[in-house]
């Protein structure tokens, strides 16, 4: 499956990625499993996605939890807790 991933705020700055297109062998994948896939890239990725930072996820512009399932064509986003207003 092909998905698009966006990164924001501290994640974007530290990972030096604002977005990427990713192709995966799976037909569906939980948010937590996708974090695990990305965390394998390097120690920084591991720390940002599975470390002490509370990382929030969104699928197709909806906030979701770690168990939510990602399928082909989805737009995924990872970011720290929001601090607007």
């Amino acid at each position: 499956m092909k998905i698009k991933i966006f990164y924001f705020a501290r994640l974007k700055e530290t990972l030096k990625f604002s977005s990427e297109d990713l192709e995966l062998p799976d037909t569906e994948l939980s948010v937590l499993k996708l974090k695990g896939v990305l965390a394998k890239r390097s120690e920084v990725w591991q720390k940002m996605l599975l470390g002490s930072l509370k990382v929030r996820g969104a699928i197709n512009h909806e906030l979701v939890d770690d168990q939510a399932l990602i399928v082909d064509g989805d737009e995924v986003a990872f970011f720290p807790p929001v601090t607007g207003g």
Partner: protein
Amino acid sequence: MKIAVQSEDFDLNVELARMRESRKDIGALVSFVGLVRDVNDGETVSQLTLEHYPGMTEKALQAIVADAASRWAVLDATVLHRVGSLQASEQIVLVAVASAHRDQAFKACEFIMDYLKTQAPFWKKELTASGERWLDDKESDHDAQKRW
């Protein structure tokens, strides 16, 4: 209903005038304006930068306003949130709610702010003498959202 994410400043009078013109049964207009404070957590803030998730932000704000309108008798609502770089004292966000009665307008306005703070994808970065720092979310904001 008007919802916008913008880098330009906003004019509260213009927004309220538009809401008032739309209908004559408005008895109460409650507005919240959030400003950049010059000091945060003991440090002087010289600049605040707001980032957001363009595809998601307006949808999230629309969902929050729709939720408020389903709970209270909202006649009209305006939510404007700025992004980009702001200086101390500048306006960050406006939430204005029109209703026939004040209790409905107060509740809906505070609800929208509490949800915006915890659900809408904005992130603040402060510039202080010690450098840049991303702000952390606050437990008090999560508590404020959960009470509704």
